[in-house]
């Protein structure tokens, strides 16, 4: 009878047949290696959507055209002031800044660090991100301080019939 009880019915690698104490082999070498392989699997699976969207983006061709969108009337924006608007989609926050009589710049206002909304500080002449104090240059949108490493995407604007319109989102030059 005891002979029978001691027999291991079949070979398997779940370690349940040699536990002598509670939790004795909770995480041994093999168990840890299994976790590593599992983690590699999770990385593989979670990088799939990125690849898929990138492939779609590649095929969907570069310069996307969105319908031009009116941002604001010219006489409503003073020099050195900023207006929030949405472009290209309803959920993409963007920021228009009037630098001089003629000069307008617009950027996608989601910080390139972790997507916090960037705002314009007139007194300092900089765009500042409230989350980790990233700073961006107004002229070019490139990061000048803090954690962001990538410039804000530029939105091309044009002035027409006394109003400012958003035309398209510029691509990064590579």
């Amino acid at each position: 009878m005891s002979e029978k009880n001691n027999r291991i019915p079949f070979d398997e690698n779940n370690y349940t047949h040699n536990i002598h104490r509670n939790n004795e082999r909770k995480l041994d070498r093999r168990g840890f290696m299994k976790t590593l392989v599992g983690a590699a699997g999770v990385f593989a699976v979670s990088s799939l959507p990125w690849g898929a969207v990138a492939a779609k983006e590649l095929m969907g061709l570069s310069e996307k055209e969105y319908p031009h969108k009116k941002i604001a009337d010219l006489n409503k924006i003073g020099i050195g002031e900023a207006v929030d608007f949405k472009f290209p989609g309803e959920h993409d926050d963007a920021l228009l800044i009037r630098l001089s009589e003629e000069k307008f710049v617009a950027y996608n206002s989601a910080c390139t660090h972790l997507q916090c909304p960037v705002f314009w500080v007139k007194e300092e002449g900089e765009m500042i991100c409230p989350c980790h104090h990233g700073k961006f240059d107004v002229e070019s949108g490139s990061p000048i301080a803090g954690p962001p490493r990538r410039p804000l995407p530029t939105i091309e604007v044009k002035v027409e019939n006394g109003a400012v319109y958003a035309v398209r989102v510029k691509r990064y030059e590579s």
Partner: protein
Amino acid sequence: MNRRLVNFISLLICLFLNIVFTQKMVHQFKFENYDVAIMYCVLNLIVFPIALFVFKRDEKQSEVNRREQ
């Protein structure tokens, strides 16, 4: 060097590569270099079978060792 150690360290390297590739992939994606992003995605996918292979090989080797004892 000890085979067990080699297997173990190769798995650690696999995971390290995963982390590096993922980081690069996300950054290149954001920079709109979509082809490079896809390349890193594929690299990330390739690492998994390699890790699995190392794991299986380790399993086999330890079995052989056990029998030899």
